[in-house]
């Protein structure tokens, strides 16, 4: 078991004392949601509205021999049926061009509706719009379809073998990357021992509570309006391309999103709604059932990761070789980028001079995989963090000590050769998370106690050659209230609140005086995707820029009004005046009146650009890839019942350096919630497919953590103030999840003295491992 370590004092930081930022204020969206006033996508209706349903494939790999919609079309109340023939050529451009204007890879896009062949169970084949949901359902049943089964492949390793069925010409290689840093051969020769380990992870479902939904209509300008729960309002461009209409004829009106976790980063209902609304000229609504939300949307990628590590006796790593294989499911979607993230993070938060990483993704006739909180980072961490414990075991060293001697420091380079410029508080986080666990409970003969930890590093902000941007508009009204317009989708993590709190700080008003209008692709400045842990970084900086421009004008006019130097002026409590001297100040509303009368602009539209660069060297994988990184550690105590195989999570602590917590209560929520998802990943979550058929189609079969499964995580928030976000913030949305699952895996291995190399750690796998049964025999 990991020895107890006492945390050393933190390095000195200089965080300014702020009035709004850094306070655990009630989020601007909280009360509306608590009283049920928030209107979600499925809650909207339009006059004269039709209801849509989707016919989906029941076969994992088949040719559509016959598709006859005549009987369905004849059903009274059916307004429209569309098949692949009707939308021929239309592709789901889920790829980058819709978001950044750069070019797509070829062959990356799924058809809007299957044409000729289907490649997974759940693939959309036809759309129905009818007067009622019931009629639409009946029409779907009346569509006659004959399949001719085609050869299928259900395992990415098989897909890469010669002779395997090819899903897309010319071969089954969705993407491949390599990283070459230093001299791995020499590094291995220098090692005292070489440790090998292979780790496997399953498909995982996002299980957001709000099934995908939307309503679309064509307005009086001929613009197709789509109200939808999405993480990406910029998909209007991809939808325009699919419909072959100008981009200014598609308007996405995002709603509050009832959870996304990456799944609503892909186009879901909006493309179907756009086609149906255009075709019928009537408003159309489509709400997925839970089963549809499971079968028709992406999953987390299964990975198999093999680590071979050369290590000195003191635990110092001399060389690392990694092989990664990912399952893209039936269509690539964001697989190339998920694989790239996993590859760039495969070496973990460790300083390793000699690294060789080879990664490949291959398709299978299964549910497609795409973004899921962490975007390949959690899988990478399950590789490198389980491997760190195996190294410790092989050398009989303490698992923390092995990590400590290898942790990256500021100014070190990652495996892609990128220099880490912000604070690296890995050791500070690890010691605090471990310390929080306290004394472990004693083991009994049938109840084995184990302690595990996992450290990680993870990017925030998108890959820097995506040339990412965000915009925000900030205005001061004549009564001294503040308005924000920003196209930021709020997926529940407090994206909109954070930028309100930043504007409140800069303009010196209480948070209640700020109102935000968000997520309308036509009228709110485009802020980019709510993905990649980027909104606080990107839109936070855009709001900072806009609010600061307005503030500068207020300060100049106030200084003139009060007859003092600008440098003496401060804003706070809705007043502008000499710092520390309330008698020499003016109310913000009076100052706003003054400015308005003189034509001084009290609003600003600002754009923030992330660093732009041009990608990694394709031969060596070397180069800068992300804006910055977040570091942290999770630590877990478990009890394993050796008679039943049950794992009980006894304690869990998570410590992350978030740079600056804009709203500590919201940060706490991100860390607690992310950790919980990671615990579920470790011990219960498994989206099971058998020969391409989904065996876990609903919440009855696919289990996610309930209120009684795990204890609350002890959340420890550190603030180095060194991030590239506003006020020195780093990102925490995705990183929060990453270390939890490997910490559990390590705790279980510590408890039973055996490593189970595949998630989830089910009772059956525990009992098989204890009985010495291999995975193949146990199945």
């Amino acid at each position, binding site marked *: 078991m990991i020895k107890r370590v006492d945390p050393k004092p933190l390095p000195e930081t200089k965080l300014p004392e702020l009035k709004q930022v850094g306070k655990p204020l009630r989020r601007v969206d909280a009360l509306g*949601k608590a*009283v*049920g006033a928030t209107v979600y996508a499925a809650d909207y209706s339009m006059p004269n509205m039709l209801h849509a349903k989707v016919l989906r494939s029941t076969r994992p790999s088949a040719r559509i021999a016959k598709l006859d919609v005549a009987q369905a079309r004849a059903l009274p109340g059916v307004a429209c049926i569309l098949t692949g023939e009707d939308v021929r050529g239309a592709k789901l451009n889920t790829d980058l061009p819709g978001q950044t204007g750069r070019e797509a890879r070829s062959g990356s896009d799924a058809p809007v509706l299957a044409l000729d062949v289907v490649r997974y169970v759940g693939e959309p084949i036809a759309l129905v719009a009818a007067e009622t949901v019931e009629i639409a359902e009946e029409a779907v049943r009346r569509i006659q379809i004959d399949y001719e089964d085609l050869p299928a492949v259900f395992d990415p390793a098989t897909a890469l073998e010669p002779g395997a069925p090819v899903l897309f010409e010319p071969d089954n290689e969705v993407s491949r990357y390599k990283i070459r840093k230093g001299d791995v051969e020499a590094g291995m020769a220098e090692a005292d021992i070489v440790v090998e380990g292979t780790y496997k992870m399953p498909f995982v479902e996002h299980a957001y509570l709000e099934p995908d939904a939307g309503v679309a209509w064509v307005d009086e300008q001929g613009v197709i309006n789509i109200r939808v729960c999405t993480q990406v309002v910029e998909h209007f461009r991809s939808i325009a391309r699919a419909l072959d209409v100008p981009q200014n004829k598609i308007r996405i009106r995002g709603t509050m999103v*009832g*959870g996304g976790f990456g799944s609503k980063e892909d186009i879901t209902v909006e493309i179907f709604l756009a086609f149906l609304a255009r075709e019928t000229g009537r408003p159309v609504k489509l709400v997925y059932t839970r089963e549809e939300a499971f079968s028709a949307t992406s999953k987390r990628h299964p990975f198999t990761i093999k680590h071979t590590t050369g290590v000195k006796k003191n635990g110092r790593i001399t060389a690392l070789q990694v092989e990664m294989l990912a399952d893209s499911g039936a269509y690539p979607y964001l697989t190339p980028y998920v694989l790239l993230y996993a590859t760039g993070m495969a070496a973990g938060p460790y300083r390793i001079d000699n690294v060789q990483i080879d990664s490949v993704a291959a398709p299978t006739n299964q549910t497609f995989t795409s973004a899921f909180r962490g975007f390949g980072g959690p899988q990478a961490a399950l590789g490198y963090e389980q491997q760190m414990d195996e190294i410790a075991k092989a050398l009989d060293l303490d698992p923390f000590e092995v990590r400590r001697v290898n942790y990256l420091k500021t100014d070190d380079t990652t495996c892609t050769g990128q220099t880490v410029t912000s604070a690296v508080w890995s050791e500070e986080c690890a010691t605090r998370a471990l310390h929080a666990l306290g004394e472990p409970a004693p083991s009994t003969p049938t109840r084995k106690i184990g302690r595990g930890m996992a450290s990680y590093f993870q990017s925030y902000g998108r890959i820097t050659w995506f040339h990412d941007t965000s915009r925000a508009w900030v205005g001061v009204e004549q009564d001294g209230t503040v308005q924000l317009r920003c196209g930021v989708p709020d997926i529940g993590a407090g994206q909109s609140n954070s930028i309100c709190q930043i504007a409140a700080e800069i303009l010196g008003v209480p948070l209640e005086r700020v109102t935000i209008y968000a997520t309308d692709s036509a009228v709110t400045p485009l802020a980019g995707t709510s993905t990649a842990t980027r909104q606080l970084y990107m839109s936070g900086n855009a709001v900072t820029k806009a609010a600061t421009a307005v503030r500068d004008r207020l300060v100049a006019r106030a200084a003139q009004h009060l007859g003092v130097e600008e440098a003496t002026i401060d804003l706070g409590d809705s007043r502008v005046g000499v710092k520390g001297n309330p008698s020499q100040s003016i109310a913000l509303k009076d100052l706003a009146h003054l400015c308005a009368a003189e034509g001084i602009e009290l609003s600003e539209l600002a754009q923030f650009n992330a660093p732009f660069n041009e990608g990694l060297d394709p031969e060596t994988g070397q180069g800068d890839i992300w804006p910055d990184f977040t570091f942290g550690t999770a630590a877990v105590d478990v009890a394993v019942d050796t008679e039943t195989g049950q794992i009980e999570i006894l304690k869990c602590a998570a410590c992350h350096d978030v740079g600056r917590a804009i709203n500590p209560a919201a940060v706490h929520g991100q860390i607690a*919630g992310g950790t919980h998802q990671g615990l579920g990943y470790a011990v219960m979550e498994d989206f099971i497919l058998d020969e391409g058929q989904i065996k876990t189609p*609903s919440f009855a079969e696919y289990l*996610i953590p309930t209120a009684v499964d795990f204890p609350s995580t002890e959340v420890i928030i550190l603030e180095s103030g060194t991030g590239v976000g506003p006020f020195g913030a780093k990102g925490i949305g995705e990183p929060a999840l990453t270390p939890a699952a490997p910490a559990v895996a390590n705790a279980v291995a510590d408890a039973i003295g055996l490593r189970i190399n595949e998630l989830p750690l089910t009772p059956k796998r525990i009992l098989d491992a204890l009985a010495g049964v291999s995975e193949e025999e146990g199945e």
Partner: protein
Amino acid sequence: MREIRLNVNGRAHELRVSANMTLLTALRDLGYTDVKNGCEIGECGACAVLLNRRVVNSCMVLAAQADGATVVTNAGLGTMKDPHPIQEAFADAGAVQCGFCTPGMVISTKALLDRNPDPTEEEIRDALSGNLCRCTGYGQIVSAVQLAAERLKRSISSPASPRCGDGHEPAPAEPLRVSGEVPRGGEGE
């Protein structure tokens, strides 16, 4: 089709429902969209309402079974202008992230605190075990229930104006569990 009467959040409704329409569908069709549809099989708790003061998943009750019943949804407990202390506690304690599970969580909390004003953490977790949340990890929700319990106890001496769901009849000792295969409204399977 069958004619039924429902009293929802203090408003009387007469409506015609099909034999397989669930209470969830009936309520949402009436405009009570704060009742959320998360799974339609009684697994997620997003559609929880108080049916004659007992908490039920409205997807597991046929609308026809609820004929004559009094229903209280989350929006019936309080409003933006006058939130219920439980709703206020959820907002204050950071228990609300995406908010989609929140109406059901608040309803389950209301039922819990009606029958047990001073629950332990274990009792809170047990009472919320039928409400899935994917965002919070439940810790801040437990804190919200504790905060609400505290505030409600303090406010007993100075009762506010009457609200829906605060009737005078004694609260049931155990929540009603409607189980069995109920045809799903709007599914037609």
